[in-house]
């Protein structure tokens, strides 16, 4: 690596800022790894000297666990604060609690003894705005006033959110997961995980979810948790100075984020492994699990939902399912896959329009218009008026005798004496039919509006809207199957498992399966999705239906396009992300991709001891390459090493300021000993420190398959191409990505031999 063999180089003064990276550049994974190994070796060798050094060694080893603990605590606290604040502010759109303004509707009526069986939600302490302002709670004027105030509150929240994002932290908008995926693969985006982004994202996330827009908070919670991870890792020099180690911490923080979003620690770790992280060594697996557990425990001790559950839609029924029901489950999977494809295509088209046309110049106006449309259309339908989490909770729940929602308005047998949770299938009452067409309208509305909402300049996630779409579709299918089984219990398929008077079909299970299918269709998660869903529901018996739906939806969606929503957004923004899931099956060679191609100017190289400082400075100024290969001489182009542009600039600047006698005519050399120079030439400049003596090289006949594999597995930024020891050209990561994109549009059988 860079000059670590020579004692003289160690005694040289280290250059400032060497080893840090510029914004929007990729890190050098191998160098970060070797720096960490050096640091660890130094600490281990020092720890044998004295007790104090030994203690410092122990502290260094334990600092990883301390960071995980802190991340878990802060992520859990922030998630608790967000949940409580969202709960309150969502209800603020409809009314206010008179006894204590900080209570939401449910909390306000918690101690009240005036709730009746028919009107479980009403209590005198909590009043709607129409009751408060004009003292009327029924009638057309009250409805219109409530409607108007609902829309006004929604607009106010959305406007505040977009203004805060615009003024304080523009990086706080969007979901965050595509950018975090890119950052974890080695890209640097300065400020994306900063303190102001953390603060702004937390505050505006509450505002945006409360305004009733069709978005969720799970993706932004991953971003918030990664910001916490970045903050704590900057307190310890082991992580703050090493970008590779920092990304291990960020992987674990992402797991903690999903863990508090869903109340699913194991699902969070698997999500981090499957979706977000690039390199996931086993050490990170254990630490992620610890961070996720600490976060879940902190959230539970804050207890936002008043009954020791972590998530709003935790269901606990254990009714069995039957093999014949796999057919509707697979149909739901197909629906999920189709919806996922539709959503990804439409959303990317709309985002591309926002990027390229005049629509992108009015972000604040766009947010306000979409909020107005959402609020105006959502209010009349009771299923869209309530918050999406409550909707999902209602759809997942089974109908016992005690439910009062419209979905459970079945025709009861008044003389029935069965205990509460074993109610057999009943015919649907009028309320259920009303609920079905309201749900159908709500489904269409949600499908359309989420396309326009995801990607606006506010924090927005899409887990909850996808689950809502799936849950609505699933519940409708479930009610359909249930009524079919009741009215036609003498058909062959129902006769075996569905006797009259037995509890056959659970529509809530269909809602869960539908939610899993739609979420899988959009994000293309597999194992992590199933684990999250069964940690959400607590029902191990439902793994097989969930898996069937998830697998079906992934197959159907993959038939139309290989990318999930996050990869699609990465491609839309052009981030340099080399996906580990893409397979490269074309038969091109390294010589087809390397630069310079035929007709291009020759490669800009540095020689090992025949260029002056002025020559190098001119070369750096005229080109914008990130690095230059160093060869023996222009005649024999044998490769010595590779020098990074940033380090050359800093080294030359430092040398001009600090070293004696360095002028523009000084020879710059990269060898151990200075070259032979005439007597009165100026002091030569030794820059062996900035030279990477072991750059990766491939020969020109290396297949591109191998080259892409090397780039992926080692996280390279560039790779040099040689033939019999002579330097031919260079392949950068951008060249690889462009080549892969080009190949994807062409027939894979066509062979490109120059």
């Amino acid at each position, binding site marked *: 690596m860079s000059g670590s063999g020579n004692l003289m180089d160690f005694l040289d003064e280290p250059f400032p800022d060497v080893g840090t990276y510029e914004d929007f550049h990729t890190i050098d994974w191998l160098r970060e790894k070797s720096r960490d190994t050096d640091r660890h070796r130094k600490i281990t060798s020092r720890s044998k000297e004295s007790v104090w050094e030994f203690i410092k060694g122990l502290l260094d080893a334990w600092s990883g666990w301390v960071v995980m603990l802190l991340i878990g605590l802060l992520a859990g606290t922030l998630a608790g604060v967000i949940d409580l604040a969202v709960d309150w502010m969502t209800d603020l759109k409809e009314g206010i609690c008179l006894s204590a303004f900080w209570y939401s509707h449910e909390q306000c009526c918690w101690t009240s003894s005036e709730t009746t*069986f028919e009107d479980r939600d009403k209590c005198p302490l909590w009043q709607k705005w129409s009751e408060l302002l004009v003292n009327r709670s029924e009638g057309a004027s009250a409805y219109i006033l409530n409607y108007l105030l609902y829309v006004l509150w929604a607009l106010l929240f959305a406007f505040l959110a977009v203004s805060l994002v615009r003024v304080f932290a523009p990086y706080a908008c969007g979901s965050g997961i595509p950018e975090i995926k890119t950052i974890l693969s080695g890209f640097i985006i300065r400020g994306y995980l900063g*303190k102001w982004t953390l603060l702004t994202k937390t505050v505006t996330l509450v505002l945006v979810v409360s305004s009733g827009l069709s978005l969720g908070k799970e993706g932004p919670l991953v971003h918030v948790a990664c910001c916490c991870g970045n903050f704590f890792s900057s307190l310890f020099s082991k992580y703050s100075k090493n970008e590779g180690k920092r990304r291990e911490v960020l992987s674990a923080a992402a797991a903690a984020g999903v863990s508090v979003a869903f109340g699913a620690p194991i699902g969070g770790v698997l999500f981090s492994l499957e979706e977000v992280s690039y390199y996931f060594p086993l050490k990170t697996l254990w630490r992620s699990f610890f961070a996720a557990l600490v976060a879940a425990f902190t959230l539970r001790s804050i207890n936002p939902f008043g*009954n020791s559950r972590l998530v709003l839609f935790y269901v606990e029924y254990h009714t069995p399912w039957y093999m014949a029901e796999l057919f509707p489950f697979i149909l739901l999977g197909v629906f999920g896959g189709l919806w996922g494809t539709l959503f990804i295509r439409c959303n990317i088209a709309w985002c591309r329009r926002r990027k390229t046309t005049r629509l992108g110049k009015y972000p604040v106006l766009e947010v306000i218009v979409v909020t107005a449309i959402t609020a105006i259309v959502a209010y009349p339908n009771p299923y869209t008026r309530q918050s999406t989490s409550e909707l999902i909770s209602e759809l997942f729940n089974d109908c016992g005798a005690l439910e009062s929602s419209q979905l459970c308005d079945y025709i009861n047998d008044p003389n029935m004496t069965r205990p509460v949770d074993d109610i057999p299938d009943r015919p649907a009452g009028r309320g259920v039919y009303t609920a079905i067409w309201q749900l159908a309208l709500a489904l269409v509305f949600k499908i359309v509006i989420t396309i326009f909402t995801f990607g606006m300049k506010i924090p927005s996630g899409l887990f909850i809207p996808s689950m809502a779409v799936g849950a609505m579709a699933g519940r409708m299918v479930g009610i359909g199957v249930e009524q079919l089984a009741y009215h036609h219990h003498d058909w062959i398929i129902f006769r075996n498992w569905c006797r009259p008077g037995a509890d056959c079909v659970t529509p809530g299970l269909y809602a869960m399966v539908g939610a899993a299918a739609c979420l899988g269709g959009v994000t293309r998660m597999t194992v992590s999705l199933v684990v999250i869903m069964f940690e959400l529901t607590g029902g191990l018996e439902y793994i097989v239906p969930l898996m069937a739906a998830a697998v079906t939806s992934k197959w159907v969606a993959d038939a139309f396009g290989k990318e999930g929503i996050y990869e699609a957004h990465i491609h839309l923004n052009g981030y340099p992300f080399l996906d580990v899931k893409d397979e490269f099956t074309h038969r091109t060679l390294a010589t087809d991709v390397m630069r310079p191609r035929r007709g291009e100017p020759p490669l800009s190289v540095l020689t090992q001891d025949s260029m002056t400082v002025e020559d190098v400075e001119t070369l750096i100024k005229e080109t914008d390459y990130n690095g230059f290969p160093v060869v023996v001489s222009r005649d024999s182009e044998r490769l010595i090493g590779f020098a990074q542009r940033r380090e050359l600039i800093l080294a030359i600047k430092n040398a001009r300021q600090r070293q004696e006698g360095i002028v523009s005519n000084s020879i710059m050399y990269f060898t151990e000993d200075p070259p032979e120079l005439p007597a009165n030439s100026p002091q030569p400049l030794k820059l062996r420190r900035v030279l990477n003596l072991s750059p990766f090289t491939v020969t020109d006949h290396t297949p591109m398959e191998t080259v892409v594999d090397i780039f992926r597995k080692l996280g390279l930024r560039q790779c040099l191409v040689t033939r019999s020891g002579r330097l031919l050209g260079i392949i950068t990561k951008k060249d690889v990505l462009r080549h892969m994109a080009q190949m994807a549009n062409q027939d894979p059988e066509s062979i490109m031999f120059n």
Partner: protein
Amino acid sequence: MATPWGGLPRLGASLSLSCLALAVLLLVRTAAAAKNSEDVRCKCICPPYKDIPGHIYNRNISQKDCDCLHVVELMSVREPDIEAYCLRCECKYEERSSVTIKVTIIIYLSILGLLLLYMVYLTLVEPILKRRLFGHSQLIQSDDDVGDHQPFANAHDVLARSRSRANVLNKVEYAQQRWKLQVQEQRKSVFDRHVVLS
């Protein structure tokens, strides 16, 4: 990503984060101690049965006593029907922490209020103050800020001006201007050129 100076924005961010840290301590402590009599309840829901209408009963009772016999008022139910009625009732024990809710909402609203005030100051008040202090000479300064009506448009100028002096107040202002430049860069790449975040 760690700026070398303290600075007002970093101070503000650290202040908010320490508020949140305080919130953690408060919340965990109050969550453990919130056995306020108002904060526990046993909720029994009984559906209608024969001629008895449906009813909801709330009482604060300990968890072991949370069942139909202790909570439901069985005065109006006839002797032979009590067992059937109670079988259909569902009783659940619930706990909450009202202090946690109150503290959280008030902390959140105060942070939101502070941010809104600071935003109003930055976007409306500060340009007016600067214009009064520095006069019109500033408006001709840099070409690419012409027509830039966004906040922090004068960050470049103040940065250049304040680099010469070196006391604490100017260090704070210097750091604040650096932060404003960073945010302006971010805003350009996100909102104007649409390079990052579509």
